[in-house]
Every structure is written in structure tokens, then in C-alpha cells.
């Protein structure tokens, strides 16, 4: 990983990475200072001022229940990122050891696990997520767990593929020759090398998780009203869109786009930074 000192010039050369970092900072700020940044309560309905277009009072307008969209977007950052990041963290925590084990020890159990992963992944992600959330109930944590279940195979496969290719690499033979045990080969030699693609994937997955959470909420299989959540907010304006009320869906949708974009940009940067060949060529 890059030290801080090499990070600055890198950022100067890569405005995209800089943009990602700025977006991330904005989101962190939104998470930390939500109460200060917002102008209204994110869950207080004010029926008499429903569906107001953007104005000085309501920067992004109000939704059908008269809640302030701007304030809701700010507060939603917490929920959305909480769900996505914890889902990915969980998936990583489960998927990495699984991938390592089934990649390193090949046997019936491993191939059974692979079948299972194939199976989970052969469904359209979204449909499976939808079904799972409705089985488990619409709680924030359930959404996170479901996403983790969906992402675990991805990480496990990724790590497994890396392990499979790494274990054939001569430096593993060399290590064995130097007396490394299975344990140290797995954790000291293979894991650190296999982790880089997983870390890049983390960033992408967080983006995917944000999109999926939003999608689930959009069809009503995600978090519950009136929790400020971007997908739910888009959905609450979906009906109105065709009648020309654009602000209810537009702004939270933009928030989703920017947030996912942020993680995509960071992912690219991480990939760049962790690849020694691209770094030295700079």
C-alpha cells in the first residue's frame, strides 16, 4: 500500500481518484454531521406541505408526506452506507477464509461448496435478494445479512481463483522447500497476495450493495418507511414522476449515483496503487 507521502502526488495526477476521495469525505461528513447539516427532521411528516418543489425553505423540495428531501438524503447516507459496508465486511469475513480453504484443500467438501456457490450465483441476484428479505423480514440488519449472503460466494470464488493460481506459482514451492508449513503457506504466502483483488472487489461490492439495497427498497422489499433510505425515497417519488413531479426521485437517485461512483473511483485507485507494475511506471 502506498504511504501517505506518495499518495499526494498520486492524487494530483489522478483527478478521478481525487474526486472519489472528495465524495467519500462528503459522505463521511454527512454521516457524522447529519443533524447539523440537515435543515429539517428527516422523518417528520408535514402533510400540508407535501410535494413542494425545491425552494429556499426546502432545498430539494418535499415528498408526498411533506418531509424535507434534502434532510432525508443527508440522513440516508448513514443507513445506506451502514448497510452496504457492513454487508461487504461480513461477506469478506466469511468469503475470504472459505475461499482460502476450498482453494487450498481440494476435496469433496470443496467441490460441494463450489456447487453451492454456483447455485447461489446462478440466480438473478436481485430476485434471490428479494425472496430472502421477504423471508427474513424488513429490518436493516436483515438486508445487510442478505446482501452478505449474496456477496460471500463472490469473495470466496475470487479468493479461491487467486489461491489456485498462486499455489502453482514457484514461490510457493520455494517456500515449501524452505520448510514453510501448510498454515504459513496459506496465511503468510498466499493470503496477502490473494487479498489485493479482494480489496479492489470490496470497493466495487460496496457500490453494488448500495445499488441492491436501493433496488430492494424500491420494490418495497428493503427497509421500512419512513426510514430515510435512498432507494425508498426514489420509490416514493416513482409514482409521481409520470405526472411531472421530478424532484422526489431525482435527488435521492443522484445521491445513489454519486455514492456508488465514489466507491468505483476509489476501487480503481486502490487497484492502481496496489499494482506495483502500474505504480512504478508512473
Amino acid at each position, binding site marked *: 500500500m502506498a504511504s501517505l507521502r506518495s499518495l499526494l502526488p498520486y492524487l494530483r495526477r489522478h483527478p478521478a481518484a481525487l474526486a472519489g476521495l472528495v465524495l467519500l469525505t462528503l459522505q463521511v461528513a454527512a454521516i457524522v454531521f447529519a443533524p447539523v447539516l440537515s435543515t429539517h427532521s428527516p422523518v417528520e411528516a408535514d402533510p400540508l406541505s407535501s410535494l413542494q418543489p425545491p425552494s429556499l425553505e426546502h432545498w430539494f423540495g418535499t415528498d408526498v408526506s411533506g418531509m424535507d428531501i434534502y434532510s432525508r438524503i443527508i440522513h440516508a447516507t448513514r443507513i445506506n452506507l451502514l448497510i452496504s459496508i457492513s454487508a461487504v465486511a461480513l461477506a469478506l469475513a466469511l468469503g475470504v477464509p472459505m475461499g482460502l480453504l476450498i482453494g487450498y484443500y481440494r476435496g469433496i467438501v470443496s467441490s460441494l461448496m463450489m456447487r453451492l456457490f454456483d447455485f447461489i450465483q446462478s440466480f438473478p441476484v436481485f430476485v434471490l435478494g428479494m425472496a430472502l428479505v421477504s423471508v427474513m423480514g424488513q429490518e436493516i440488519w436483515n438486508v445487510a445479512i442478505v446482501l452478505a449472503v449474496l456477496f460471500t460466494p463472490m469473495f470466496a470464488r475470487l479468493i479461491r481463483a487467486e489461491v489456485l493460481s498462486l499455489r502453482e*506459482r*514457484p*514461490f510457493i*514451492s*520455494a*517456500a*515449501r*522447500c*524452505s*520448510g*514453510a508449513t501448510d498454515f*504459513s503457506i496459506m496465511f503468510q*504466502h498466499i493470503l*496477502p*497476495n490473494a487479498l489485493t483483488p479482494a480489496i479492489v472487489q470490496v470497493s466495487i461490492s460496496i457500490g453494488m450493495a448500495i445499488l441492491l439495497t436501493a433496488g430492494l427498497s424500491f420494490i418495497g422489499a428493503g427497509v421500512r418507511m419512513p426510514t430515510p433510505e435512498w432507494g425508498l425515497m426514489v420509490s416514493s417519488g416513482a409514482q409521481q414522476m409520470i405526472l411531472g413531479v421530478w424532484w422526489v426521485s431525482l435527488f435521492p437517485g443522484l445521491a445513489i449515483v454519486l455514492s456508488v461512483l465514489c466507491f468505483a473511483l476509489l476501487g480503481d485507485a486502490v487497484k492502481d496503487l496496489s499494482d*506495483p*507494475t502500474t505504480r*512504478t511506471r508512473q
Partner: protein
Amino acid sequence: MTAPDSHAPDSSVLLDVEKLRVAFGDRTVLSDVSFTLRRDEVLGIVGETGAGKSVLARALIDLLPEGGRITGGDVRLSGRSVPSMTPREKRELRGGRIALIGTNAKALLDPVEKVGAQVARVLRAHKGGSRRGAWKAAVDLFARVGIVDPERRAHAYPHELSGGMAQRVVIAMAMIAEPQIVLADDATLGLDATIQVQVLDLLVKRCRDLGLGAVIITHDLGVVANYCDRIAIMRDGRIVELKPAGRFLEKPEAQYSAVLLDAARVRPTPMGAFGTAASAPPKPLLEVEKLEKSFPVGNGKLVRAVDGISFSVAAGETLALVGESGSGKTTAGQCLVRLLDSDGGRILFDGTDTTTLSERGFRPLRRRIQMVFQEPYVALNPRWPVEDLIAEPLGLSPGMDRAARARRVRELLDMVRLPASLAAAYPHQLTAGEQKRIGIARALATGPDFVVFDEPTTALDIRVRAQIIDLVRDLQRDMGLSALFITHDLNSVRSLAHYVAVMRNGKIVEHGETETIFARPAEDYTKALLAAELPIEQSEAQRTRALSRHAMAQA
């Protein structure tokens, strides 16, 4: 320049390079390169990695890698300046008048297209004509570049060809549009010596037959000595010396040239001069009996990589295992250190049959048997710093504290002649030679009795190779190591091994003392192997030819 014919604008000059400068960004990689190439002349360009040879070749057809620009000078083909040609003319030039042959022929061929079609495609790009006619021309040419059964081979895909065969296809591709000049950039790198000779013979012969100009770019002074009329030595983007081959070999002028030539000529100090006397056969440290190892390859077939070989190595002795690529050398070596489980036979190390031991049971022996791996970079974990890499095998000798380890690491760095400052570096920050040394330091860390050296010198630059050979020889002497020395490079065998075993198709075809084998090879295969080694001397034929040409030029 020393060549007498460098200025004259005479009609036999095909290519005239004048003060050519190429830069990548603000880094100049070629400066003031000038030379000419005449009809029916073979020019050799030699230089170490990064000297700018490939950049030069590509600059000649104005097809530099992205980011590279010609910043000065000119390349003239029959008087026409190449850089100022229109794109269309350049396209016709490339492959049509100057053909380029690169390294690793398999990678140069379109993997999803039949090779015959690929060659035909080039012909049609330059000469037009019908698909069928071009195909026929390609097949004819295949026959002439020594491809047996050309009609069938033309229908093959690149992955179905061997390396040598693929190289012939690429040569055919270069020749098909009847260019005036052929550029061969490390065209035979990575091929077996025997194949290399065949390919080069073929290439040079065709150039001579057709009276083409050829530029052979290589690391190997043996190649230029045997095939080229003139030699250019490159270093850091400059030509430091350019003269007829014979004169160069006799008396290089530039100091760098002399160093290069010396390193390439490291002549073996026969082992007898310093090694243990081969008089009283000592008790063998390692005995291998009828070792067998096969690999399954797809549809149930087996490749017998090692097919019943037997040999023994006594304490303090070195056995060299030589043979062409794929003959099973690495496999044999890996069986010894138990990276592969053998399928049959016995391996007795110091009296213990290691083939019957479990992995756990073998672990104590690892301290005594070590291996140096073939490719230096990939055998090092890219995420570990040098000190950890070297310290890893020390885990085999229990009871070492931190300080002791650190001390040992420094000792080892010193032993392989690396500065202690490298301890914190990562493998990708090292040169190939340094990486190789780290590999050796790792193998020596536990003070083993027996080391398998897998190709310690291949893929290294001339000077670095000489240094590694010196290092290994010193270590053998100082530590009294026994070693199995696996290699392609017959030169180094003579410097390092007491005995030689020649492998072919998994079997040992000849086995004996080094000097004996080199002097009087018994088997045809061994003879062929030895013949393929290109001495750094001008052959008789070359010399006469050079003389006659010189006379011609004088006339």
C-alpha cells in the same frame, strides 16, 4: 565510425541510419545511432538488457511503442526517409520491404487463426491476389523454411505448434512478401540450443540466397560470431563499437566490448583443478535409483517426464543434468526435494529412502536438501522483503532468536555478495541477478549438504551470468557442497560440474565425467547438443566470406 563504407551513397546500401535519436517522454533511450546496411549483409547488434536494441528495431520501421518518438536523425530506406512517409507508404514498407521477427514466436501469431491463413494474409496485404493463391504461396514457403508436411501444418492453430515450428512460421511470414531487409529481434531467445541453431541457419541462409540485408539482434555473442558480417555493440542507447565480426573478436576496441567478450568467454577452469579428487570414490550422499514420474495430460494419457533415471552424487561432488527443454530435468530435481512425489524408484539421501517418508517426516531433511529455483523473480514472494525471504528457511533450524537470525541474514547477504542495505528491499526492486542471488542465499541459509540448482544462469545477461557462475563455484569450494546442477548452458557445466548426465525424453542417455563427455561424446544426441553450442569464434566459413566481402568492398 570505423566501417569504411559508412558514407558512400552507393546503390548497394539498403538502409542508412543517421544520428537516430529516440525518446520516451523526456528520457532519451537512443542517442545518435548511425549505421548502414547493405544488400547481402548480416549485421549483428549485441547489448545487454535495456540497451535499446528493440527500440532501434522498431524505430527502423517507425513503429515505436506508445510514448516513443524519433527526436532526431533519420532512417533512409534506399534513399527515402522513413519517418516522413505517408501512413500508407509506411504500411507498405512494414512487412513489404522491411520485415520484423520478434521474440517468442507463439505470442506473435494470432491464436484463433490458422497459421497458413495468417501468412497468406500478409502476402495479400502487400501483393494482393486471390485467397487461394496466397494460401498456396504460403504453403510453398512453409516447405522452404523447413516445415515438414506443410499443407497439414498450414491448417494448424499456433497452440498446436512447437516453439521452433512457430518460429519458422514467423520467418515465413516475414519472407512471404519478399522484403529487402529482415530484422530479427532476439528471434531465438528461449529456444533450445539445437533448435536455435537450426532456425538461425535457416534464416541466414535464406537471406544470403536472396541477397537480403539482415539485422540480427541478440544477447549472445556466439550468435553474432557465427552468423554476422559485422557486429555493433550497444550500450545505453548508443553504438559503442561497430566493425566486421572477425576484427571485433580479435581485438575489441571499446572497454565495454572487451568486458562483454571476456564475460562471454568465461572458459571453464576444469573442476579437477580445485574440486575433490575423483580418485577414491567416496560414499555417495545421494543415490537415485530408477526414479519415475509421470503427469496426466488430458484425455487419460500420461507424460513420462522422468522415466527411470539413476545416478548418485557423493559428498562434495557436483553432477550436471543437461538436456533440451522438456527432457524432465526440473521434474527430476523437484522429486529430490519432494516438491513432487515420485511414482517409482528410490531416492536415498544419506542412507534414508525419502520416497517412503511422509511430508512431515521429510521436514527435518529439508534443512539438508535445498533448491535454487529456475526463474528468479517468480520464486520469491513479491510481498516479502529480502530479509524475511532469506530468514524463512531458518525456521527449519529451531532455537534461533531474532538477533541470531538477523545476524545470519547479514552473513548470507554477504556470502552472495549483496550489500546489507538490500535487506529491506522487495523483489521487484531488484535486478534479475540480485534476485538470483537471493534465491541462492535462501537455499544456503540452513547450511545444507545438498543443493539442487535449477538453471541458475539462464535468462541472465552475459556479465551477470559470469558473476553467478563465479559465485556458485566459490561456494562449492568454500562450503564443500554437493549439488545437482540443472542447465541448458553447456559452458557453465564445464566450469561447475564434476560429472554430467545428459537427459532426453525423461531418460539419461549418457553419463560420465565432464571432461570426458565434452571431449569424446559417445551418443549422437550428446554430440548434437554440443554442436549446437555456438563458440564465440568466427567459423571458417564465416571468415572466408568476410574476407571476400571485404575485398569486394575494397574493389
